[in-house]
């Protein structure tokens, strides 16, 4: 793990100060309507699910932004939007000053795909069980025509495996011969193959044990240090987020409700929902202490509450929260979307 595999300063342009990733009011809706006939007969309207509803953030080069939130709040959808698995219904995604979605659709898409890669949640499902590790890791190289010579390919795959702490001898094995943590490292090696600048990680460790999780998180951090990678890190585990991130965005039902510097957020959460999430984490050192957990159920995204989506579960909600949806605004150096905070009712 000692030698850096490559130098990342591939773009000749001097590292600009502009953020690498700029997401502007991105939204994505899914049509989950019943079939046409049902709608006609049962007089049901078309149903649109706003999985992501106007999310904006930036990530500077070499930094990590973490997104947290409950299941179904749209974290994965954001991730998929960024890597081009989904097209946004609204908004823009600028990557290194380039409109990424325009590029995905054009011929430069391939070029862009080399620079944006993704690591998935499930190390068991994200590797094709019928391919050898060698082929899995080499696939991006082959696909982008970066290396054609078989010997060179093997050499490179070996390097990549070594860079994630595996042995090149593992090349000839199949995924099922590895443990969960090792597989996740194979995924990382595959993602690194094209020397990307930006890695989207969708809950890369939530399927892993804590001891394995530590190994994977360490490797990710090492790689960031060595190669100046930029991460979007998605998780629902706040402790992990606190460990890896520089900035944290909290999502609730498709929207960002708070976006802040890591330290600030953990030290001084503003949004009631953020507070609630922090409260929900069982404290390792507070054995036997009873907590008052979050109340209420996760709302149905098909039928989101009016106004502030969080108001049914919020102890500070008032009439305004029920009626008016708060916008994300900068309050005290932190971006937060809450009437109570804005009004100063909540400090």
């Amino acid at each position, binding site marked *: 793990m000692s030698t850096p595999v490559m130098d990342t300063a591939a773009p000749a342009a001097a590292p600009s100060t502009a953020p690498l990733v700029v997401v502007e009011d991105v939204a994505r809706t899914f049509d989950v309507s019943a079939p046409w006939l049902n709608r006609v007969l049962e007089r049901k309207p078309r149903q649109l699910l706003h999985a992501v509803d106007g999310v904006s953030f930036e990530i500077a080069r070499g930094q990590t932004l973490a997104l947290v939130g409950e299941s179904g709040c749209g974290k994965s959808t954001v991730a998929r939007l960024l890597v081009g698995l989904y097209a946004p219904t609204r908004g823009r995604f600028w990557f290194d000053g380039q409109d990424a979605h325009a590029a995905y659709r054009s011929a430069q898409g391939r070029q862009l795909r080399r620079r944006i890669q993704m690591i998935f949640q499930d190390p068991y499902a994200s590797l094709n069980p019928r391919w050898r590790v060698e082929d899995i890791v080499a696939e991006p190289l082959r696909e982008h025509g970066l290396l054609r010579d078989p010997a060179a390919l093997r050499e490179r795959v070996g390097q990549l495996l070594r860079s994630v702490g595996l042995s090149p001898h593992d090349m000839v094995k199949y995924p099922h011969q590895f*443990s969960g943590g090792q597989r996740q490292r194979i995924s990382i090696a595959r993602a690194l193959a094209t020397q990307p600048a930006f890695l989207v990680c969708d809950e890369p460790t939530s399927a892993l044990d*804590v*001891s394995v999780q530590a*190994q994977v998180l360490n490797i990710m951090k090492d790689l960031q240090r060595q190669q100046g990678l930029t991460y979007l890190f998605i998780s629902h585990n706040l402790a992990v987020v606190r460990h890896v991130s520089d900035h944290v965005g909290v999502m609730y039902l498709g929207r960002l409700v708070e976006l802040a510097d890591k330290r600030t957020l*953990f030290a001084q959460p503003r949004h009631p929902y953020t507070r609630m999430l922090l*409260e929900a984490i069982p404290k390792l050192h507070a054995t036997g202490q009873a907590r008052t*957990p979050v109340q209420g*159920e*996760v709302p149905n995204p098909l039928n989101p509450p009016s106004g502030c989506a969080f108001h049914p579960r919020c102890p500070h909600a008032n009439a305004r929260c029920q009626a008016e949806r708060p916008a994300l605004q900068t309050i005290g150096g932190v971006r937060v979307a809450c009437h109570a905070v804005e009004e100063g009712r909540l400090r």
Partner: protein
Amino acid sequence: MDKLLEVKDLVVEFPTRRGVLRALDGVSFDIAPGEILGVVGESGAGKSLTGAAIIGLLEPPGRIAGGEIRLQGQRIDNLPPAQMRRFRGRRIGAIFQDPLTSLNPLYTIGRQLTETIRTHLDVSADEARQRAIELLRDTGIPAAEERIDHYPHQFSGGMRQRVVIALALAAEPQLVVADEPTTALDVSIQAQIITLLKRICRQRGAAVMLVTHDMGVIAETCDRVAVMYAGRVAEIGPVHEVIHRPAHPYTAGLMRCIPDMEVERERLHQIDGAMPRLGEIPRGCAFHPRCEQAMLRCHDQRPDLMPAGATRAACWLHEAAAAPDATTAAEITR
């Protein structure tokens, strides 16, 4: 103190073509009435198998090959199936990981509840229904009278897990085996369910064996905790002690792996290597290849649980107390 459950030298084996696999190899622990025992450990350490062995639901070809399990002094590991069946539900309840798949989708939850109640208690259908409604209410399901006639798919995940808890407690068992009851649930719901489980068992005086990956949950819920590694108990003791003064190197490593909310570290501590697979468990202490303090004897002598401060740990390091002249391999190699 009376022991509610005693597990002694439990061995579970799977006969396979590559020979017999020992998935549990001499697991011993006990649970007092009303106590909550947490069980943690890496995936595949044998947590679920221990639970399954206790409720007598090992999946064939898995079988108990040795040791004994006693409930209130009575041996239950070798009971005939019909008798064991009467224990299940009535004296030992169980909760599984996934609340969606634990409920039969074709029956209303009311039917599943009354069926359980009437299997174990001699009550009329009406009484059973009444009890079911109360149970649902106790577990915090709003409008229980109405919801009782709904089908599982009409409930959200958190609610389903409440129903599962209600089902497990329907016949007032003395012991509940909860195998990762919150892993499939949302972060915010997890805390609700754990709190509920804890409250309701305390209320009914039921002891709980709580299997989980989440140290945080253990820390705030349990009285004692058992740490499992490769089919054995590595350490067992009061929660506070195990977390703050781990006696086994594995436990210590595990504790340091957990990203901590309080302390910030640039790099997490990591235990290199991976837990050995079944069938490749090394001789001696199963942890020795990963252990920084491994001694020569760790390579071929398997430690049993032995007192280690306030806890008991299966590690030769603590034999020092018994045999003070032992030198560690680490010392020799250094």
